[in-house]
């Protein structure tokens, strides 16, 4: 039956029926989405419920108390570890920005001899997993005596984060008109001045994207912190949790309380800056 020949009365009921079917469909969809939400929230539920038990209550399988939270700082040195994580994240990200932004700018706007090849080389380093170069890296950093403090870990994080940030900044700066830079140079700003006064201010969205992505990456990482920070007193929180968990002597409620605490900063950053994260992830396909 073609659309043109449908008479008016029939159209009415079919529209009604379609609206009803649509509503039912939407309702079913909502229920399915609710189900997915339950699955995705499961980790948080486990962490909350298990952390609200004492060790005995956990073993017995019932009862709730704040005891794991109250004794948390004596079970796991959370404060110290959160401070370590914060320092490592902050310094690494600053280094990645300080190195990546000028390089991205150079590759996009100040091309020099062989800059295309060098750019390709740096960007392809993105594909090298740390495990592939772990042994030489570890020996180099140890020989340089950098595993004592945060320096070794910060350098490794910076090196691992730089290729992506160079790529992202270069892609971003390609959209900046050449005239802007030329005008700055003619005005006597010089290249460093132009970079600082003209380029950095317009790069804020790209800076935000790099910062958010790297923050989550570094805050959540285990391998680098585990191997390149020798002193247990300088351990970041993720490493502290992993080592205790692998040791299998720490009570699960305490571990869950520590986990929840460690997850909070990254979750907040995530929820607040979600759109920068999406931008960073899809960089290069949109353009």
């Amino acid at each position, binding site marked *: 039956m073609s659309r043109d020949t449908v008479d008016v009365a029939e159209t009415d009921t079919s529209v009604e029926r379609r609206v009803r079917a649509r509503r039912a469909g939407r309702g079913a969809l909502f229920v399915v989405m609710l189900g997915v939400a339950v699955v995705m929230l499961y980790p*948080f539920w486990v962490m909350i419920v298990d952390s609200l038990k004492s060790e005995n209550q956990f073993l017995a399988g019932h009862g709730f108390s704040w005891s794991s939270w109250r004794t948390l700082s004596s079970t796991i040195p959370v404060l110290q570890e959160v401070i370590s994580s914060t320092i490592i994240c902050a310094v690494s990200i600053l280094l990645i920005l300080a190195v990546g932004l000028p390089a991205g700018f150079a590759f996009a706007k100040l091309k020099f001899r062989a800059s295309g090849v060098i750019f390709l080389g740096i960007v392809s380093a993105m594909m090298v997993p740390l495990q592939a170069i772990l042994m030489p890296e570890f020996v180099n950093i140890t020989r340089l005596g950098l595993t004592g403090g945060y320096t070794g870990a910060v350098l490794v994080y910076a090196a691992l984060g730089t290729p992506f940030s160079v790529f992202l900044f270069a892609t971003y700066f390609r959209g900046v008109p050449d005239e802007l830079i030329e005008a700055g140079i003619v005005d006597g700003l010089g290249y460093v001045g132009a970079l600082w006064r003209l380029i950095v201010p317009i790069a804020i969205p790209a800076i935000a994207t790099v910062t958010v992505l790297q923050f989550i990456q570094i805050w959540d990482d285990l391998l680098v912190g585990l191997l390149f920070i020798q002193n247990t007193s300088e351990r970041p929180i993720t490493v502290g949790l992993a080592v205790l968990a692998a040791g299998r002597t720490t009570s699960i409620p305490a571990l869950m309380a520590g986990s929840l605490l460690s997850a909070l900063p990254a979750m907040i950053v995530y929820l607040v800056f979600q759109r920068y994260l999406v931008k960073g992830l899809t960089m290069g396909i949109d353009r």
Partner: protein
Amino acid sequence: MPRLTLRRRRQLAGAVFALPALVLVLGLIGLPIGQAVYYSFTQWDGLTSTWIGPSTWTQAFHNPNLWTALQNNAWLLLAVPFALGFPLLIAMLLHQRVVGWKVFRSIYFLPTAISWVVLGLVAERFFAYQGTLNSLLHVVGLAHVNTNMLGYESTALSALGITFVFTMIGTNTMLFLTGLATLDTSLEEAARIDGAGRWRIFRHITLPHLSRFIQLAFVMTVIALFSALFSLIFVMTGGGPGYATTTMEFLIYQTGFAQGDFGTAALYGLILFVLTAIVGIIQLRLIGSDE
């Protein structure tokens, strides 16, 4: 100082700006690759190395642990379709924009912010003998099926794979949702008016449009599978039981740091490097064929 032309000055500025990034990447990524090649031919304990020659490689390939690890990686590849399929479905659901879809979106992405160390800990609770999985089985009347997936060689790898699928859902859903947002809705509308069914619209309009996003998600997922499982394995199984969940990346760590055999670990690292490079080249090919 001789006056340089504007062009020369610009090039010089570019080279200077690029130098720190180049030094950092060369020193901490480029150089170690070269060193790994050299050390893979030596017996090396981290302090002294003795040149052995190519026989280190033939010896390595005779080590059954290497084959077990490669096999484990190969088996885990079976998780990739799920790590792409579920997010595609979820992204399609979100794309329908039912009431509250933005809240759902935030909830679905939330686990992405959490460390895989923490997710591994939670997964351990899920698969534990007294964990959620057995409670669920109990509820649906399968009380007699008491699982302890992480405790047995036959099931531990599957548990790891399931956890991996869960950890990838957020990132891949985000990618696909971004892809769907760039889809011109009038195209779908036109197809619907022309009488195309839902499946045909999905198959002939939505899926082709998403192909680049699916490629990217595929590469990211495979790379994560080869190089980001360390946290999960470290927390959940320590590579065991036996070598049941020892993947290449974990074998490198074990060989180097538990057995102190730096030379063989460097060699394994190169194998992992080649594997990821192959995935990268496939991606370049795919992108190249598009343009």
